[in-house]
């Protein structure tokens, strides 16, 4: 497995950012036949937030602008860029427009997934008018990619509870708002997925992009997809599956049967791990070595982007952390699961998450 050094990938980044580190996840997929190996970048959760008129929250703008600038400096170029959802904070046109304007600076093809912050104001109408369908699939270098809208919820909640789209969006935007409702892919898209996968050979590596984790971690904060098991069952026949998701604003990874799960950091702000909410039970995958707690005095800390290398359908996820050593989580064929290449084996005493 080829190990990329961040400096190789981001030639010139140091010049521009004065030794700064990176808010991107770069993902490399690799095959025995190395011509099929490739890399893509993953940017997620920018939460562009309008203050008034053309004024937007500076902090969130800066996170996305930085990710775009750094992704453009990657060398070799990524095959494409994936955006993991939550462009906007409250789903407003002005926020989506402002976010897409910043993202339009990217030099590579960008694929998008819908986040709940893009959806619950107008049920995704404006997002779809700008970016097209919210679920679709494509093939790339012998792999099959599927994008799902995983942030739907019960029809009754969506249609019958709220006086306005603003009210509905406001409730769903509050991660800890107890009036919220669990995310789901839903029966209609599951049927579509089943049909889509029916034409794919089981030896073809399948990669799914969703906004919420297609595994159940913490229901209170919607680190959760209600029909996760049903989706996992549809993916079970395939030899190798990768699931990439946003929404959680933190490093998470897991292995369930044939499926490797990888979460992305946000460009906007990091979230506490669920276990730091002392009053509720949660299920952070045991495998995950958590990222360090964020330094509030350095506003970009614990935000970032990532790049991903694909080898033989397996993903190596590179996290770039502005104030900490970068981290790499790679599939370990010996154990059959993703592992942090530095911290998994020699677990240093982890920071206590009070």
């Amino acid at each position, binding site marked *: 497995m080829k190990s990329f050094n961040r400096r190789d990938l981001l030639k010139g980044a140091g010049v521009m950012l004065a030794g700064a580190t990176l808010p991107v996840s770069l993902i490399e997929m690799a095959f025995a036949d190395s011509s099929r190996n490739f890399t893509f970048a993953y940017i997620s959760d920018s939460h562009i*937030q*309008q*203050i008034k008129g053309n004024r937007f*929250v*500076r*902090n969130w703008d800066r996170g996305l602008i930085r990710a775009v600038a750094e992704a453009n400096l990657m060398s070799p170029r990524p095959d494409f860029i994936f955006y993991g959802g939550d462009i906007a904070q409250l789903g407003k046109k002005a926020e989506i427009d402002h976010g897409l304007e910043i993202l339009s600076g990217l030099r590579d093809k960008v694929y998008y997934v819908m986040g709940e912050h893009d959806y619950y104001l107008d049920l995704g109408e404006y997002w779809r008018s700008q970016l097209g369908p919210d679920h679709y699939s494509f093939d790339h270098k012998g792999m099959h990619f599927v994008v799902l809208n995983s942030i739907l919820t019960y029809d009754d909640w969506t249609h019958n509870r709220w006086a306005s789209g603003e009210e509905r969006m406001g409730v769903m935007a*509050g*991660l*800890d708002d107890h009036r919220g409702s669990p995310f789901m892919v839903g029966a209609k898209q599951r049927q579509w997925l089943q049909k889509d996968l029916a034409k794919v050979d089981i030896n073809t590596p399948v990669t799914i992009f969703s906004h919420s984790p297609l595994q159940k971690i913490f229901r*209170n*904060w919607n680190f959760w997809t209600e029909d996760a098991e049903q989706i996992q069952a549809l993916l079970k026949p395939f030899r190798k599956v990768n699931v990439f998701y946003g929404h959680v604003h933190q490093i998470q990874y897991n292995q369930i049967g044939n499926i490797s799960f990888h979460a992305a950091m946000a460009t906007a*702000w*990091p*979230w*506490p791990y669920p276990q*730091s*909410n*002392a*009053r*509720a039970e949660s299920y952070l995958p045991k495998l995950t070595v958590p990222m360090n*707690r*964020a330094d*509030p*005095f350095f*506003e970009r800390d614990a935000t970032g982007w990532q790049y991903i290398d694909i080898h033989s359908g397996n993903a190596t996820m590179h996290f770039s952390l502005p104030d900490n050593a970068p981290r790499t989580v790679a599939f370990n064929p010996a154990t059959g699961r993703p592992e942090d290449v530095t911290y998994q084996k020699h677990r240093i005493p982890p920071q206590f998450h*009070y």
Partner: protein
Amino acid sequence: MGIKTVSMVVLAAAALFATTTLQADEFTRADLDLWQSQYQAAVKKGRQVFTDPGLGTNGVVCAQCHPNAANTHPETYPKFQKQLGKVATMAEMINFCIMNPLEGKPLALDDPRMIAIQAYITEERRGVPLAPGKH
């Protein structure tokens, strides 16, 4: 039991009642209800302030980064905060977050909103052992 002993017991009991009316009594139901309702009102107000886009100047709210007030660690205060160069109280870190991510003006320490935020944060962490000085 003779008549004499009975009257002594009565006398002793009378003396006991006389002193207890002068000393602290059991808390009454009314006391308990008052404390609870006043405190819960502060907690409720604290949650409102914690999710109030008007607290700062940019519409950002505390709950955006601290769902269920997680990662505020009230049990660790007071503690040494390297970046402030001193032992700080939680109120100082609350003001730090108001001034920075919320781009707002710091609250006075006795501002009812400051007190309410602390009530809400601490209520979310009830049951967690005190760990003063830790991070």
